[in-house]
Protein backbone atom coordinates (compact mmCIF):
# COMPACT_ATOMS: atom_id res chain seq x y z
CA UNK A 1 0.00 0.00 0.00
CA UNK A 2 1.35 3.40 -0.91
CA UNK A 3 1.20 6.69 0.91
CA UNK A 4 -1.42 9.02 -0.46
CA UNK A 5 -0.64 12.70 -1.12
CA UNK A 6 -2.84 13.81 1.75
CA UNK A 7 -1.59 11.41 4.42
CA UNK A 8 -0.11 13.36 7.28
CA UNK A 9 3.54 12.75 7.97
CA UNK A 10 3.05 11.30 11.44
CA UNK A 11 1.34 8.34 13.04
CA UNK A 12 0.08 5.33 11.12
CA UNK A 13 1.74 4.86 7.76
CA UNK A 14 -0.28 2.95 5.14
CA UNK A 15 2.64 0.65 4.31
CA UNK A 16 2.49 -0.55 7.95
CA UNK A 17 -0.94 -2.12 7.28
CA UNK A 18 0.37 -5.74 7.34
CA UNK A 19 1.50 -5.13 10.95
CA UNK A 20 -2.20 -5.01 11.88
CA UNK A 21 -3.55 -7.95 9.86
CA UNK A 22 -6.11 -10.10 11.65
CA UNK A 23 -4.23 -13.19 12.84
CA UNK A 24 -6.35 -15.66 10.82
CA UNK A 25 -5.56 -13.82 7.60
CA UNK A 26 -1.90 -13.49 8.58
CA UNK A 27 -1.53 -17.25 9.17
CA UNK A 28 -3.28 -17.98 5.88
CA UNK A 29 -0.92 -15.60 4.06
CA UNK A 30 2.09 -17.16 5.78
CA UNK A 31 1.03 -20.68 4.78
CA UNK A 32 0.57 -19.75 1.14
CA UNK A 33 3.91 -17.95 1.06
CA UNK A 34 5.67 -20.79 2.87
CA UNK A 35 4.48 -23.35 0.32
CA UNK A 36 5.64 -21.11 -2.51
CA UNK A 37 9.06 -20.34 -1.06
CA UNK A 38 9.80 -23.97 -0.19
CA UNK A 39 8.87 -24.95 -3.74
CA UNK A 40 11.07 -22.17 -5.14
CA UNK A 41 14.07 -23.26 -3.06
CA UNK A 42 13.46 -26.93 -3.89
CA UNK A 43 13.27 -26.23 -7.60
CA UNK A 44 16.22 -23.85 -7.81
CA UNK A 45 18.69 -24.44 -4.98
CA UNK A 46 20.53 -27.73 -5.32
CA UNK A 47 21.91 -28.00 -1.77
CA UNK A 48 18.40 -27.52 -0.33
CA UNK A 49 16.91 -30.08 -2.71
CA UNK A 50 19.58 -32.60 -1.70
CA UNK A 51 18.95 -32.05 1.98
CA UNK A 52 15.21 -32.55 1.43
CA UNK A 53 15.92 -35.69 -0.59
CA UNK A 54 18.02 -37.15 2.25
CA UNK A 55 14.90 -36.94 4.40
CA UNK A 56 12.67 -38.14 1.54
CA UNK A 57 10.78 -34.86 1.61
CA UNK A 58 9.21 -32.78 -1.13
CA UNK A 59 7.51 -29.36 -0.85
CA UNK A 60 4.21 -31.26 -0.64
CA UNK A 61 5.04 -32.00 3.00
CA UNK A 62 3.81 -28.49 3.89
CA UNK A 63 0.08 -28.73 4.52
CA UNK A 64 -0.11 -26.55 7.61
CA UNK A 65 2.26 -23.98 9.14
CA UNK A 66 3.22 -26.50 11.82
CA UNK A 67 4.65 -28.74 9.09
CA UNK A 68 7.58 -26.32 8.84
CA UNK A 69 9.10 -28.30 11.73
CA UNK A 70 9.62 -31.22 9.31
CA UNK A 71 11.99 -29.20 7.13
CA UNK A 72 15.78 -29.24 7.52
CA UNK A 73 17.58 -26.27 9.09
CA UNK A 74 19.91 -23.89 7.29
CA UNK A 75 23.16 -22.83 8.94
CA UNK A 76 25.72 -20.13 8.49
CA UNK A 77 28.15 -22.80 7.32
CA UNK A 78 25.81 -23.50 4.38
CA UNK A 79 26.54 -19.98 3.12
CA UNK A 80 30.28 -20.54 3.50
CA UNK A 81 30.17 -23.98 1.89
CA UNK A 82 28.27 -22.64 -1.11
CA UNK A 83 30.34 -19.48 -1.53
CA UNK A 84 29.77 -17.37 -3.48
CA UNK A 85 26.56 -18.00 -5.46
CA UNK A 86 25.59 -21.60 -4.66
CA UNK A 87 22.40 -20.79 -2.73
CA UNK A 88 20.88 -18.39 -5.26
CA UNK A 89 17.41 -19.28 -6.54
CA UNK A 90 17.42 -16.63 -9.29
CA UNK A 91 19.60 -16.40 -12.39
CA UNK A 92 22.22 -13.64 -12.22
CA UNK A 93 20.21 -11.69 -14.81
CA UNK A 94 17.54 -11.11 -12.15
CA UNK A 95 19.92 -10.29 -9.31
CA UNK A 96 20.44 -6.57 -8.89
CA UNK A 97 22.40 -6.35 -5.64
CA UNK A 98 24.96 -8.36 -3.67
CA UNK A 99 26.02 -7.82 -0.08
CA UNK A 100 28.65 -9.67 1.92
CA UNK A 101 29.62 -9.95 5.55
CA UNK A 102 33.14 -9.35 6.69
CA UNK A 103 33.19 -12.70 8.46
CA UNK A 104 35.78 -13.32 11.13
CA UNK A 105 37.59 -16.15 9.42
CA UNK A 106 38.04 -17.17 5.82
CA UNK A 107 35.51 -16.41 3.11
CA UNK A 108 32.71 -13.92 3.66
CA UNK A 109 29.07 -14.89 3.28
CA UNK A 110 27.31 -13.49 0.24
CA UNK A 111 23.64 -12.54 -0.05
CA UNK A 112 21.64 -11.51 -3.12
CA UNK A 113 18.54 -9.49 -3.97
CA UNK A 114 16.22 -9.24 -6.94
CA UNK A 115 14.35 -6.01 -7.63
CA UNK A 116 11.32 -7.44 -5.79
CA UNK A 117 13.55 -8.34 -2.83
CA UNK A 118 14.80 -4.75 -2.65
CA UNK A 119 11.22 -3.47 -2.70
CA UNK A 120 10.30 -5.77 0.17
CA UNK A 121 13.43 -4.69 2.02
CA UNK A 122 12.61 -0.99 1.63
CA UNK A 123 9.03 -1.68 2.80
CA UNK A 124 10.08 -3.53 5.96
CA UNK A 125 12.63 -0.82 6.74
CA UNK A 126 9.88 1.76 6.19
CA UNK A 127 7.73 -0.17 8.69
CA UNK A 128 10.74 -0.20 11.05
CA UNK A 129 11.12 3.57 10.92
CA UNK A 130 7.35 4.14 11.08
CA UNK A 131 7.15 2.09 14.27
CA UNK A 132 9.94 4.22 15.79
CA UNK A 133 7.95 7.37 14.94
CA UNK A 134 10.22 8.61 12.15
CA UNK A 135 8.27 10.59 9.58
CA UNK A 136 8.46 12.90 6.57
CA UNK A 137 10.24 16.06 7.69
CA UNK A 138 12.73 14.21 9.90
CA UNK A 139 16.42 14.62 9.14
CA UNK A 140 18.06 11.28 9.79
CA UNK A 141 21.79 10.69 9.96
CA UNK A 142 22.57 7.18 8.77
CA UNK A 143 25.84 6.20 10.41
CA UNK A 144 25.58 2.51 9.58
CA UNK A 145 28.39 1.54 7.25
CA UNK A 146 27.55 1.86 3.56
CA UNK A 147 28.98 -0.78 1.30
CA UNK A 148 29.03 -4.54 1.51
CA UNK A 149 27.45 -4.42 4.98
CA UNK A 150 23.63 -4.47 4.74
CA UNK A 151 23.08 -1.87 7.48
CA UNK A 152 23.88 1.31 5.56
CA UNK A 153 21.95 0.76 2.32
CA UNK A 154 19.16 -1.11 4.10
CA UNK A 155 18.40 1.84 6.36
CA UNK A 156 19.00 4.32 3.54
CA UNK A 157 16.23 3.08 1.24
CA UNK A 158 13.78 2.70 4.11
CA UNK A 159 14.40 6.31 5.13
CA UNK A 160 13.95 7.60 1.59
CA UNK A 161 10.77 5.53 1.26
CA UNK A 162 9.27 7.11 4.37
CA UNK A 163 10.19 10.55 3.05
CA UNK A 164 12.77 11.50 5.66
CA UNK A 165 15.83 13.54 4.68
CA UNK A 166 18.80 11.17 4.73
CA UNK A 167 22.27 12.29 5.74
CA UNK A 168 24.34 9.32 4.53
CA UNK A 169 27.41 9.78 6.73
CA UNK A 170 28.19 6.06 6.90
CA UNK A 171 30.40 5.01 9.82
CA UNK A 172 33.52 6.67 11.17
CA UNK A 173 34.87 10.21 11.44
CA UNK A 174 33.17 10.82 14.76
CA UNK A 175 33.95 14.53 15.04
CA UNK A 176 32.38 15.22 11.65
CA UNK A 177 29.31 13.14 12.62
CA UNK A 178 28.83 15.41 15.62
CA UNK A 179 29.37 18.59 13.62
CA UNK A 180 26.81 17.59 10.97
CA UNK A 181 24.35 16.44 13.61
CA UNK A 182 24.49 19.87 15.21
CA UNK A 183 24.68 22.00 12.04
CA UNK A 184 21.95 20.14 10.12
CA UNK A 185 19.54 19.98 13.07
CA UNK A 186 19.44 16.18 12.75
CA UNK A 187 16.35 14.65 14.46
CA UNK A 188 17.11 10.94 14.08
CA UNK A 189 20.16 8.69 13.96
CA UNK A 190 20.88 5.12 12.89
CA UNK A 191 24.00 3.30 14.05
CA UNK A 192 25.12 0.56 16.41
CA UNK A 193 24.28 1.33 20.06
CA UNK A 194 27.92 1.06 21.11
CA UNK A 195 28.95 3.60 18.47
CA UNK A 196 26.25 5.97 19.66
CA UNK A 197 27.59 5.74 23.21
CA UNK A 198 30.97 6.62 21.74
CA UNK A 199 29.31 9.61 19.98
CA UNK A 200 27.77 10.83 23.25
CA UNK A 201 31.16 10.55 24.93
CA UNK A 202 33.03 12.34 22.15
CA UNK A 203 30.36 15.06 21.87
CA UNK A 204 30.85 15.76 25.57
CA UNK A 205 34.60 16.13 25.02
CA UNK A 206 33.91 18.57 22.19
CA UNK A 207 31.57 20.58 24.40
CA UNK A 208 28.40 19.51 22.55
CA UNK A 209 25.50 18.40 24.74
CA UNK A 210 23.34 16.12 22.59
CA UNK A 211 20.39 16.79 24.90
CA UNK A 212 20.32 20.39 23.67
CA UNK A 213 20.11 19.37 19.99
CA UNK A 214 16.86 18.59 18.09
CA UNK A 215 17.92 14.90 18.02
CA UNK A 216 14.83 12.95 19.10
CA UNK A 217 15.08 9.33 18.07
CA UNK A 218 17.73 6.66 17.57
CA UNK A 219 17.33 3.42 15.65
CA UNK A 220 19.95 1.03 16.93
CA UNK A 221 20.83 -2.50 15.92
CA UNK A 222 23.42 -4.86 14.41
CA UNK A 223 24.59 -6.04 17.84
CA UNK A 224 22.98 -7.24 21.05
CA UNK A 225 22.51 -4.50 23.64
CA UNK A 226 20.94 -4.33 27.05
CA UNK A 227 18.20 -2.37 28.77
CA UNK A 228 20.97 -0.71 30.79
CA UNK A 229 22.63 0.55 27.61
CA UNK A 230 19.26 1.96 26.55
CA UNK A 231 19.00 3.90 29.82
CA UNK A 232 22.54 5.12 29.38
CA UNK A 233 21.77 6.30 25.82
CA UNK A 234 18.39 7.86 26.60
CA UNK A 235 19.75 9.64 29.66
CA UNK A 236 22.97 10.79 28.02
CA UNK A 237 21.40 12.15 24.85
CA UNK A 238 17.75 12.87 25.66
CA UNK A 239 16.49 10.74 22.76
CA UNK A 240 14.17 7.75 22.56
CA UNK A 241 16.25 4.70 21.62
CA UNK A 242 14.68 1.89 19.56
CA UNK A 243 16.02 -1.59 19.08
CA UNK A 244 15.79 -3.11 15.63
CA UNK A 245 16.58 -6.62 14.54
CA UNK A 246 17.88 -8.16 11.38
CA UNK A 247 20.63 -10.19 9.80
CA UNK A 248 22.12 -10.27 6.33
CA UNK A 249 21.31 -13.93 5.77
CA UNK A 250 17.59 -13.13 6.09
CA UNK A 251 17.50 -9.65 4.48
CA UNK A 252 19.63 -7.27 6.57
CA UNK A 253 18.03 -4.87 9.05
CA UNK A 254 14.24 -4.92 8.81
CA UNK A 255 13.33 -8.34 10.22
CA UNK A 256 11.73 -6.75 13.25
CA UNK A 257 11.62 -3.59 15.30
CA UNK A 258 10.32 -2.07 18.49
CA UNK A 259 7.21 0.08 18.47
CA UNK A 260 6.69 3.08 20.76
CA UNK A 261 5.94 0.67 23.64
CA UNK A 262 9.62 -0.40 23.57
CA UNK A 263 8.57 -3.79 24.90
CA UNK A 264 9.90 -6.37 22.50
CA UNK A 265 10.42 -6.33 18.75
CA UNK A 266 7.59 -6.93 16.31
CA UNK A 267 8.65 -9.39 13.63
CA UNK A 268 7.42 -8.54 10.13
CA UNK A 269 5.81 -11.93 10.01
CA UNK A 270 4.26 -11.60 6.59
CA UNK A 271 7.84 -11.86 5.25
CA UNK A 272 9.78 -13.63 8.01
CA UNK A 273 8.38 -16.61 9.86
CA UNK A 274 9.80 -17.01 13.39
CA UNK A 275 10.25 -20.21 15.40
CA UNK A 276 12.04 -20.76 18.70
CA UNK A 277 13.93 -24.02 19.11
CA UNK A 278 15.89 -25.69 21.84
CA UNK A 279 19.45 -25.25 20.51
CA UNK A 280 20.48 -28.64 21.90
CA UNK A 281 17.59 -30.88 20.83
CA UNK A 282 16.46 -28.70 17.89
CA UNK A 283 12.84 -29.23 18.94
CA UNK A 284 10.41 -26.34 18.38
CA UNK A 285 9.44 -24.68 21.66
CA UNK A 286 6.04 -23.18 22.38
CA UNK A 287 5.68 -19.38 22.31
CA UNK A 288 6.96 -17.86 25.53
CA UNK A 289 9.86 -20.27 26.04
CA UNK A 290 13.42 -19.11 25.59
CA UNK A 291 15.59 -20.65 22.92
CA UNK A 292 17.26 -19.99 19.59
CA UNK A 293 15.43 -17.91 17.01
CA UNK A 294 14.94 -19.66 13.65
CA UNK A 295 13.71 -17.63 10.68
CA UNK A 296 12.25 -18.54 7.31
CA UNK A 297 12.06 -15.95 4.54
CA UNK A 298 8.52 -16.18 3.19
CA UNK A 299 8.91 -13.91 0.19
CA UNK A 300 12.62 -13.85 -0.69
CA UNK A 301 13.28 -14.62 -4.35
CA UNK A 302 17.03 -14.37 -4.94
CA UNK A 303 18.08 -16.29 -1.84
CA UNK A 304 15.33 -18.00 0.12
CA UNK A 305 16.38 -19.14 3.59
CA UNK A 306 14.46 -22.02 5.06
CA UNK A 307 14.63 -22.42 8.85
CA UNK A 308 17.83 -20.40 9.25
CA UNK A 309 19.37 -20.81 12.69
CA UNK A 310 20.22 -17.28 13.83
CA UNK A 311 22.13 -18.28 17.02
CA UNK A 312 20.25 -15.43 18.74
CA UNK A 313 18.68 -16.36 22.07
CA UNK A 314 15.22 -14.92 22.76
CA UNK A 315 11.58 -15.89 23.22
CA UNK A 316 8.31 -15.03 21.50
CA UNK A 317 6.15 -12.77 23.64
CA UNK A 318 2.70 -14.27 23.95
CA UNK A 319 0.70 -11.22 25.06
CA UNK A 320 -0.63 -8.93 22.33
CA UNK A 321 1.11 -5.54 22.21
CA UNK A 322 -0.88 -2.53 23.35
CA UNK A 323 0.17 -0.66 20.20
CA UNK A 324 -2.39 -2.74 18.29
CA UNK A 325 0.00 -4.52 15.94
CA UNK A 326 -0.91 -8.18 15.53
CA UNK A 327 2.47 -9.42 14.34
CA UNK A 328 4.20 -11.24 17.17
CA UNK A 329 7.05 -9.82 19.20
CA UNK A 330 10.33 -11.35 20.29
CA UNK A 331 12.09 -10.23 23.44
CA UNK A 332 15.16 -8.10 22.75
CA UNK A 333 18.15 -10.23 21.88
CA UNK A 334 20.67 -9.66 24.63
CA UNK A 335 22.83 -12.62 23.81
CA UNK A 336 23.88 -14.89 21.00
CA UNK A 337 24.81 -18.48 21.44
CA UNK A 338 27.88 -17.52 19.33
CA UNK A 339 29.02 -14.92 21.88
CA UNK A 340 28.89 -17.41 24.68
CA UNK A 341 32.23 -18.61 25.94
CA UNK A 342 32.96 -21.48 28.22
CA UNK A 343 35.37 -20.95 31.04
CA UNK A 344 36.19 -23.68 33.54
CA UNK A 345 33.14 -25.52 32.28
CA UNK A 346 30.77 -22.62 32.94
CA UNK A 347 28.81 -20.96 30.12
CA UNK A 348 29.24 -17.19 30.26
CA UNK A 349 27.64 -14.50 28.07
CA UNK A 350 29.17 -11.02 27.77
CA UNK A 351 25.71 -9.64 28.60
CA UNK A 352 26.03 -11.17 32.08
CA UNK A 353 29.25 -9.28 32.69
CA UNK A 354 27.49 -6.16 31.41
CA UNK A 355 24.67 -6.65 33.88
CA UNK A 356 27.20 -7.10 36.69
CA UNK A 357 29.04 -3.88 35.83
CA UNK A 358 25.80 -1.93 35.51
CA UNK A 359 24.61 -3.17 38.88
CA UNK A 360 27.65 -1.58 40.51
CA UNK A 361 28.20 1.59 38.53
CA UNK A 362 24.67 2.50 37.44
CA UNK A 363 25.92 3.26 33.96
CA UNK A 364 27.74 0.97 31.59
CA UNK A 365 31.48 1.60 31.54
CA UNK A 366 33.62 0.63 28.58
CA UNK A 367 34.93 -2.81 29.28
CA UNK A 368 36.41 -5.88 27.69
CA UNK A 369 36.73 -9.47 28.64
CA UNK A 370 40.12 -11.08 28.16
CA UNK A 371 40.36 -14.85 28.37
CA UNK A 372 43.78 -16.31 29.03
CA UNK A 373 45.19 -19.67 30.01
CA UNK A 374 47.65 -19.83 32.86
CA UNK A 375 49.29 -23.20 33.53
CA UNK A 376 46.37 -24.94 31.86
CA UNK A 377 43.79 -23.05 33.89
CA UNK A 378 41.40 -20.67 32.12
CA UNK A 379 41.28 -17.15 33.51
CA UNK A 380 38.70 -14.48 32.86
CA UNK A 381 39.98 -10.94 33.09
CA UNK A 382 37.65 -7.97 32.91
CA UNK A 383 39.16 -4.58 32.15
CA UNK A 384 36.94 -1.69 33.17
CA UNK A 385 37.60 1.91 32.23
CA UNK A 386 37.45 4.34 35.13
CA UNK A 387 34.90 7.05 34.33
CA UNK A 388 34.79 10.53 35.93
CA UNK A 389 31.59 9.42 37.71
CA UNK A 390 33.32 6.69 39.70
CA UNK A 391 36.81 8.13 40.05
CA UNK A 392 37.84 9.20 43.53
CA UNK A 393 41.05 10.68 44.89
CA UNK A 394 40.91 8.13 47.71
CA UNK A 395 42.57 4.75 47.28
CA UNK A 396 40.11 3.12 49.66
CA UNK A 397 37.15 4.22 47.52
CA UNK A 398 38.76 2.88 44.36
CA UNK A 399 39.64 -0.39 46.07
CA UNK A 400 36.07 -0.72 47.27
CA UNK A 401 34.83 -0.17 43.71
CA UNK A 402 37.24 -2.82 42.49
CA UNK A 403 35.96 -5.25 45.09
CA UNK A 404 32.29 -4.56 44.33
CA UNK A 405 32.91 -5.13 40.61
CA UNK A 406 34.64 -8.45 41.30
CA UNK A 407 31.86 -9.61 43.60
CA UNK A 408 29.13 -8.57 41.21
CA UNK A 409 30.73 -10.47 38.32
CA UNK A 410 31.25 -13.55 40.44
CA UNK A 411 27.67 -13.42 41.73
CA UNK A 412 26.16 -13.19 38.24
CA UNK A 413 28.49 -15.41 36.20
CA UNK A 414 29.72 -17.77 38.90
CA UNK A 415 33.29 -17.07 37.80
CA UNK A 416 35.90 -15.27 39.85
CA UNK A 417 37.29 -12.72 37.40
CA UNK A 418 40.47 -10.70 37.60
CA UNK A 419 39.08 -7.19 37.42
CA UNK A 420 41.47 -4.48 36.33
CA UNK A 421 40.64 -0.78 36.46
CA UNK A 422 42.10 0.96 33.43
CA UNK A 423 42.39 4.51 32.16
CA UNK A 424 39.69 5.99 29.91
CA UNK A 425 40.12 5.28 26.18
CA UNK A 426 42.59 2.48 26.80
CA UNK A 427 40.17 -0.12 25.43
CA UNK A 428 39.93 -0.02 21.62
CA UNK A 429 36.64 1.39 20.26
CA UNK A 430 34.95 -0.06 17.23
CA UNK A 431 32.82 1.82 14.77
CA UNK A 432 30.68 -1.18 13.93
CA UNK A 433 29.80 -4.00 16.27
CA UNK A 434 31.45 -3.67 19.65
CA UNK A 435 34.03 -6.35 20.31
CA UNK A 436 33.78 -7.38 23.95
CA UNK A 437 35.67 -10.64 24.20
CA UNK A 438 39.35 -11.19 23.52
CA UNK A 439 40.04 -14.89 23.65
CA UNK A 440 43.79 -15.26 24.06
CA UNK A 441 43.70 -18.86 25.20
CA UNK A 442 46.01 -21.04 23.22
CA UNK A 443 45.84 -24.79 23.27
Amino acid sequence: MRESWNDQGQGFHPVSAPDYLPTVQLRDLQLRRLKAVVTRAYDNVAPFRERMAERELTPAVIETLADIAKLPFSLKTDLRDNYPFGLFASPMSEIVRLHASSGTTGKPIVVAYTQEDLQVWASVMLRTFASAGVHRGDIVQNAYGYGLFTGGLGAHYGLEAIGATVVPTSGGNTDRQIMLMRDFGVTGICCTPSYFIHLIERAGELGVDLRELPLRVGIFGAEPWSEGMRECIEHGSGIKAFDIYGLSEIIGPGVGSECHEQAGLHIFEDHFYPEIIDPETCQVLPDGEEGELVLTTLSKRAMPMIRYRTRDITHIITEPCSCGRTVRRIARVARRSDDMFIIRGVNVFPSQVETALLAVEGILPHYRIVLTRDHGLDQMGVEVEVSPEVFSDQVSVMEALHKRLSHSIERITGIRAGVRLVEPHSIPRSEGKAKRVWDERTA
Partner: protein
Amino acid sequence: MKVTQISCFIENRPGRLHAACEALASRRINIHTLSLADTAEFGILRLIVAEPDAGKAALDAAGYVTRKTEVLAVEVPDDAGGLASVLAKADTAQLNIEYMYAFSAEVGARAVVIMRFSEPDRAVEALQRAGVNLVAPIALLAKA
Protein backbone atom coordinates in the same frame (compact mmCIF):
# COMPACT_ATOMS: atom_id res chain seq x y z
CA MET B 1 41.92 28.91 52.96
CA LYS B 2 41.41 25.76 50.97
CA VAL B 3 43.73 24.65 48.22
CA THR B 4 42.57 22.91 45.05
CA GLN B 5 44.19 19.56 44.44
CA ILE B 6 43.92 17.65 41.17
CA SER B 7 43.87 13.88 41.35
CA CYS B 8 44.41 11.68 38.37
CA PHE B 9 43.95 7.96 37.79
CA ILE B 10 47.16 6.29 36.62
CA GLU B 11 47.43 2.72 35.43
CA ASN B 12 50.46 0.80 36.54
CA ARG B 13 51.96 0.75 33.08
CA PRO B 14 55.36 2.07 32.15
CA GLY B 15 55.32 5.67 31.01
CA ARG B 16 51.88 6.66 32.29
CA LEU B 17 53.15 8.79 35.17
CA HIS B 18 55.68 10.43 32.92
CA ALA B 19 53.01 11.14 30.28
CA ALA B 20 50.83 12.87 32.87
CA CYS B 21 53.68 15.13 33.97
CA GLU B 22 54.51 15.74 30.32
CA ALA B 23 50.92 16.85 29.65
CA LEU B 24 51.34 19.53 32.33
CA ALA B 25 54.82 20.52 31.27
CA SER B 26 53.78 21.00 27.64
CA ARG B 27 51.32 23.67 28.81
CA ARG B 28 53.91 25.17 31.15
CA ILE B 29 51.94 24.37 34.25
CA ASN B 30 54.13 24.32 37.32
CA ILE B 31 53.77 21.43 39.71
CA HIS B 32 54.20 22.66 43.29
CA THR B 33 54.06 19.24 44.81
CA LEU B 34 52.76 15.79 44.04
CA SER B 35 52.14 12.50 45.71
CA LEU B 36 51.44 9.13 44.17
CA ALA B 37 49.35 6.68 46.13
CA ASP B 38 49.65 3.35 44.47
CA THR B 39 48.41 -0.17 44.78
CA ALA B 40 49.53 -3.22 42.85
CA GLU B 41 47.03 -2.39 40.12
CA PHE B 42 46.77 1.36 39.82
CA GLY B 43 47.89 4.64 41.25
CA ILE B 44 46.24 7.91 42.14
CA LEU B 45 48.38 10.91 41.39
CA ARG B 46 47.64 13.96 43.51
CA LEU B 47 48.93 17.29 42.40
CA ILE B 48 49.04 20.84 43.61
CA VAL B 49 49.72 23.05 40.59
CA ALA B 50 49.89 26.76 39.90
CA GLU B 51 46.67 26.83 37.84
CA PRO B 52 44.36 23.99 38.87
CA ASP B 53 41.74 24.58 36.14
CA ALA B 54 44.32 24.69 33.38
CA GLY B 55 46.10 21.71 34.93
CA LYS B 56 42.91 19.65 35.00
CA ALA B 57 42.10 20.65 31.42
CA ALA B 58 45.58 19.60 30.28
CA LEU B 59 45.23 16.17 31.88
CA ASP B 60 41.66 15.72 30.61
CA ALA B 61 42.81 16.56 27.11
CA ALA B 62 45.56 13.97 27.43
CA GLY B 63 42.85 11.37 28.12
CA TYR B 64 43.19 11.04 31.89
CA VAL B 65 40.29 10.85 34.28
CA THR B 66 40.71 13.57 36.86
CA ARG B 67 38.94 15.17 39.78
CA LYS B 68 39.32 18.39 41.73
CA THR B 69 39.33 18.12 45.51
CA GLU B 70 39.69 20.71 48.21
CA VAL B 71 42.54 20.10 50.58
CA LEU B 72 44.24 22.15 53.28
CA ALA B 73 47.88 23.25 53.29
CA VAL B 74 48.64 23.03 56.98
CA GLU B 75 51.69 24.67 58.50
CA VAL B 76 53.51 22.35 60.84
CA PRO B 77 55.94 23.59 63.51
CA ASP B 78 59.36 22.46 62.37
CA ASP B 79 60.33 20.54 65.47
CA ALA B 80 59.93 17.12 66.99
CA GLY B 81 56.26 16.60 67.79
CA GLY B 82 55.23 19.37 65.41
CA LEU B 83 53.04 17.14 63.29
CA ALA B 84 51.72 15.29 66.33
CA SER B 85 50.47 18.53 67.86
CA VAL B 86 48.51 19.41 64.69
CA LEU B 87 47.04 15.90 64.51
CA ALA B 88 46.03 16.12 68.15
CA LYS B 89 44.10 19.29 67.39
CA ALA B 90 42.38 17.63 64.44
CA ASP B 91 41.54 14.71 66.71
CA THR B 92 40.06 16.94 69.38
CA ALA B 93 37.83 18.56 66.76
CA GLN B 94 36.86 15.05 65.55
CA LEU B 95 38.09 15.77 62.04
CA ASN B 96 38.53 12.79 59.79
CA ILE B 97 41.74 12.86 57.72
CA GLU B 98 41.47 10.79 54.53
CA TYR B 99 45.17 11.13 53.71
CA MET B 100 48.06 13.53 53.85
CA TYR B 101 51.45 14.12 52.31
CA ALA B 102 54.28 16.52 52.85
CA PHE B 103 54.65 19.57 50.69
CA SER B 104 57.90 18.99 48.89
CA ALA B 105 59.53 22.32 49.70
CA GLU B 106 59.43 24.64 52.61
CA VAL B 107 57.11 27.61 52.21
CA GLY B 108 59.14 30.49 53.43
CA ALA B 109 60.85 28.83 56.37
CA ARG B 110 57.80 26.77 57.27
CA ALA B 111 57.08 23.05 56.81
CA VAL B 112 53.74 22.40 55.16
CA VAL B 113 51.64 19.25 55.02
CA ILE B 114 48.77 18.79 52.57
CA MET B 115 45.80 17.22 54.35
CA ARG B 116 42.62 15.87 52.82
CA PHE B 117 39.74 16.05 55.32
CA SER B 118 36.35 14.49 54.71
CA GLU B 119 34.82 17.83 55.73
CA PRO B 120 37.21 20.53 54.50
CA ASP B 121 35.06 23.51 55.55
CA ARG B 122 34.68 22.33 59.12
CA ALA B 123 38.40 21.53 59.20
CA VAL B 124 39.32 25.08 58.19
CA GLU B 125 37.19 26.52 60.94
CA ALA B 126 38.25 24.10 63.67
CA LEU B 127 41.98 24.21 62.91
CA GLN B 128 42.06 27.98 62.72
CA ARG B 129 40.18 28.20 66.00
CA ALA B 130 42.81 25.87 67.50
CA GLY B 131 45.55 28.22 66.34
CA VAL B 132 46.88 26.13 63.45
CA ASN B 133 48.19 28.18 60.56
CA LEU B 134 46.75 27.35 57.15
CA VAL B 135 48.71 28.41 54.10
CA ALA B 136 46.81 30.28 51.37
CA PRO B 137 47.18 29.01 47.78
CA ILE B 138 48.93 32.27 46.87
CA ALA B 139 51.63 31.66 49.45
CA LEU B 140 52.39 28.24 47.94
CA LEU B 141 53.21 30.03 44.70
CA ALA B 142 55.94 31.97 46.43
CA LYS B 143 57.87 28.89 47.45
CA ALA B 144 60.28 28.71 44.57
